[in-house]
Each structure stands twice: as structure tokens, then as C-alpha cells.
């Protein structure tokens, strides 16, 4: 790790203690088992419980907090500002997204700077949200969206996207609709929905015998369920087309099912805002 003058630095080399744990003891629950029954007892097509809340950060224009299983993400949105370092006038406003894991959010400690994965996820977030935002309403301005994963229990990208769309709505950024996102994973012929970390690792690794080829991979689909539109489709792995088709169908339904939860939260936000206005008047 490069020496960082602006932080308090630890020793040059340090090793997470999990490296030294007794492998036989700790890995009693082999991930392969989840092919028949998932570790947390869900069916393969079940989603985890979702909790959402807006207005959690007093200093931000809009903010939201989401919990999906043990995954916890906070997101904040700030006032538009002029697009920095740009000389040309841009007719459409821009979204700037930053996706970051807290250093303690994953099994392995993360460094403070954004790594390649986080940068990639920031771009995915931006592409998922852009179709939902009326960007022509704020030409030459940029809205900053920051998402921070406090605890990664899998599918944190999907959670961050939903959280960001709520935060944008909470900040009264004009939007065409809400964005929801669900992740899916393939391992051999099994499709998992709303993955946990262990399932993400499993689906990322290729099954041993590639002949005949086995599926493996991750899919994240962000959608505007109110308009029946897919705003982002992000796939990594090696999957055949029929399975992808099946996944799109399942994910579209799942996105539609999540929508009411997010909408309800927004209704509460609006009611709260109205109440506050009423109080100010009196």
C-alpha cells in the first residue's frame, strides 16, 4: 500500500486473521450445499426483506438508507452545482455517482481510495439512474450522488441503486419514475435471486468441468418498473442465451414486486414534508 501522508498509517504488512483459521473447522457449511437449499433458508427465487427510510442525513439535500438482509447502504444527494472543468455548455444536466465500500464493510479490509471495482460500480450506478432523471431540467449542472456500503451482505450494488433513486426523489430532483434493482446469479443450472456474499463468490467461480459448458455468472438488472423499462443490464460470467432470457423475465417480475415497498416509503416522505410545511405555516 502506498504511504498515505494524510492518514494515520498502520504497519506496512498486516494479515487478516481469517487466513490462519483452521480450514476444516470454519468451512463446515460448504457453499455447494446451497444448490439444493440456501443457507438462510430462502427458496431460490425469494428476495430478502427490505427496509428503506429517507431523510437520514440532515446536512444533505436528500438521503436514504436501505437494508436488504444484512446489507446496509446509505446514500446522499446534494444541491446541483455547475459541472466542474468544463468549458462547453451542456444541454443536459449530469449525474455524478460515487460508490464506495466502507473499509470494514467486506470480509477483507478495503483501502480508503476507490478501487477498480468501486469505480466500475459507480459507472453502473450512473447508467442505471440516468434514464430516470429529467436531466433537461438542470442544464449545465451536476447532481452529486454518494453511496456508502456500511455492511456488505451481498447485492450491495443493487441496494445502492435503489437507495440512490430514493435519495434523488427525497432531494426533489425531477424524475420520470423510481429505479429498482435486483441481482441474480447462475451456477450450473440453478438461478439464485438477491444473492448473499457467499453466493456471489460461488457464482463468480466457474464450475470445474467446462465441457459440456456450465453456466456461471452474475446479473444485475435495474429497471423503471412503472414504465416497464430496463435502465441497466449488467452481466458478468458465462451464461447461455436461454438462461439469460429466463433471468430477464424473473428479474422484471422481481423489480415490479419491489416497487410498492419503495413507493410506500416515498409516500411517507411526502406526507412528512407536507406536515412540516403545515407546521411552519402555523
Amino acid at each position, binding site marked *: 500500500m502506498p504511504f498515505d501522508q494524510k492518514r494515520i498509517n498502520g504497519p506496512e504488512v498486516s494479515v487478516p486473521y481469517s487466513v490462519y483459521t483452521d480450514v476444516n473447522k470454519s468451512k463446515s457449511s460448504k457453499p455447494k450445499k446451497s444448490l439444493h437449499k440456501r443457507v438462510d433458508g430462502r427458496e431460490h427465487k425469494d428476495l430478502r426483506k427490505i427496509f428503506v427510510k429517507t431523510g437520514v442525513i440532515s446536512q444533505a439535500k436528500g438521503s436514504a438508507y436501505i437494508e436488504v438482509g444484512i446489507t446496509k447502504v446509505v446514500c446522499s444527494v446534494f444541491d446541483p452545482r455547475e459541472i466542474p472543468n468544463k468549458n462547453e455548455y451542456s444541454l443536459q444536466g449530469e449525474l455524478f455517482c460515487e460508490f464506495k465500500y466502507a473499509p470494514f464493510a467486506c470480509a477483507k479490509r478495503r483501502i480508503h481510495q476507490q478501487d477498480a471495482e468501486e469505480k466500475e460500480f459507480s459507472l453502473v450506478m450512473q*447508467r442505471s439512474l440516468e434514464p*430516470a432523471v429529467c*436531466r433537461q431540467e438542470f442544464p449545465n449542472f451536476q447532481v452529486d450522488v454518494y453511496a456508502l456500503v456500511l455492511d456488505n451482505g451481498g447485492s450491495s450494488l443493487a441496494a445502492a441503486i435503489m437507495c440512490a433513486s430514493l435519495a434523488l426523489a427525497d432531494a426533489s430532483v425531477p424524475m420520470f419514475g423510481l429505479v429498482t434493482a435486483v441481482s441474480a446469479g447462475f451456477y450450473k443450472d440453478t438461478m439464485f435471486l438477491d444473492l448473499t456474499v457467499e453466493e456471489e463468490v460461488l457464482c463468480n*467461480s466457474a464450475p470445474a468441468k467446462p465441457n459440456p459448458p456450465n453456466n*456461471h455468472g452474475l446479473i444485475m438488472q435495474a*429497471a423503471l418498473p412503472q414504465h416497464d423499462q430496463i*435502465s441497466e443490464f449488467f452481466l458478468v460470467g458465462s451464461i*447461455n442465451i436461454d438462461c*439469460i432470457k429466463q433471468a430477464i423475465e424473473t428479474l*422484471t417480475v422481481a423489480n415490479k414486486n419491489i416497487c410498492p415497498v419503495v413507493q410506500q416509503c416515498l409516500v411517507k416522505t411526502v406526507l412528512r414534508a407536507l406536515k412540516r410545511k403545515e407546521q411552519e405555516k402555523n
Partner: protein
Amino acid sequence: MANTLLSLAEKTFIVHGVDDNYRTDGRNRSEYRPMEVETKVLPHTSGSARLRLANTDILVGVKAEVDTPYPDNPNEGKLEFFVDCSANATPAFEGKGGDNLGTEISNTLTLAYQSSHVLDLTTLCILPQQKCWKLYVDVLILQCDGNLFDAVALAVKAALYSAQIPKVTTATLDGGKADIQLSDDPFDCVKLDVGSFPVLVTLCKNFTFIQIGENCVVDPTSEEEECSAASIVVAVMPNGRITSVVKTGYGSLQPSTLVKTLELAKDIGIKLNAGIMNALKEEDELGSQREIFGFLK
């Protein structure tokens, strides 16, 4: 992408043309422009290729270096992509202008090659935990006339096909330190198995201001890219499997359209893979004495 200014009338013309399956340069919607590919153009690299797709001009160099594997994956080699958008290509790439696009393309390539079905990184390992090959794939965009993703992926595949990694004759552990020796004969090399390397197929969708149903075009020119709100970049393996899907642009699409787009991408990807492999084999048959054209043409 590259700055092409189009008036509303010009855009309408292009979009109506696409609607009638007749594009401004006379192609139909699923036709590619002519391509030229030549490998081994850079003698100092392990492998290289130059690809021209109409006026899009890509140069790729592959370098192999000995490196230490990551502690997480002790028996895997490394593969790294870097895309440089040269300011030669378009004035928009001046300074840091091309950085975003460059990162986007290299990220997409990384995703497309991530699965071990594509490239088994264990084949690049020399001694577990000690030594492995690291392949640097450097892409230089010399000229830009639309459809960068497809052109870059094809050029990368061609360059990796031509790549020759020196043969390791002995690899032993000597008191905890790795000791490797390469073959003395510079022509004694290992080639990569490109049989499952994917190509990228970009399908331009959702033309701005006019919804043109489920029509999408492959190999868009920069003018056509200007009219498009969203494109789907699909990495297709020669056997038709899909290794990555990325959406670019600010638009969104309907689920049914997405499914159709992916199917189309798969069919085109299979053909494209076969095409490039044929071309590379043909070039191979010319033997090692073939004349290298490079940039003379």
C-alpha cells in the same frame, strides 16, 4: 464519444433510413463495414495487431512479463487491459478527454475476459505463489469512426492470437526462491488458445426523439451513434455463450426488446468470431515470410 454535430433534419434522415433497413452508407441493419486486420505489426511486442473498420483504426500490443501472482489466487496469471484514446483520433480526446471512454472500454474488456471459460488464467501460471505471466494488452485508438467497442475487441482477439509467450524450460524452487529459465530459442514459444475468446457486439438502440420499435443497428457509424440513446454491448463467445452485457448511453429499454437484442447479438457474434478466425488462419497460411504492410498502405 467523438463529437459529431448533426442537425435535427440529418438525424431524422438517418433514423428513417434505419427504419427502412437502408442506412446512409448502403448497408442493411445487421451488416458490418469492411474490415482489415494484420497481426505482428510491432516486432518488439509479444503479439500485436492492427485493425481497421472503415475509418476506425485500432492498434493493439500484447506484452508478457514475469510477475508474482496475487496471494488470493496463487496459481493464476494476470491479464490487464489498458485503452489509450489518443488525441490523434478526435480533438475530444485531448488532455484527459478520452480517459472516461478509455476506462469504459477497458472495463468492458476486463468483464468480457473475466470468466475462466474464456481464458483459464491458471495456464499463465509458472510456479504457484511465486511466478506467473502477466499479459499487458495495450490498446491505442488511432482513429475513431464509430463502433469502438467491437473494433477494439476484434483487434484484441487478433493480437492475443498472434501473441507468443516464451517457453519456460525449467522452473524450480531453490531455497524458497523461484528459479526459472526460458528456452534459448526465441522461436520456441507457446501460443494462447483463443478458441473461446469473445468478441464484442454493439447494438445501437432507441434512437432519440423517435421510438423506432425494435430496430437496432450493428456497427454504427459515429453519425448513427450520435442519434442513439442507448447501446447494448454484448460479449459473445464463439460457441454463442454470453460473457458480459453492458449498457452504454443514457436511455432505457423494454424487457422484450432486450431479449431480442441479445438474441441478435448472439447470432452476429458467432458469425463475427468465425470471420475473424478465418481471416487470422488465412494470414497464418501465408507463413512467416509474409510481407508486413504495417502503416504503408
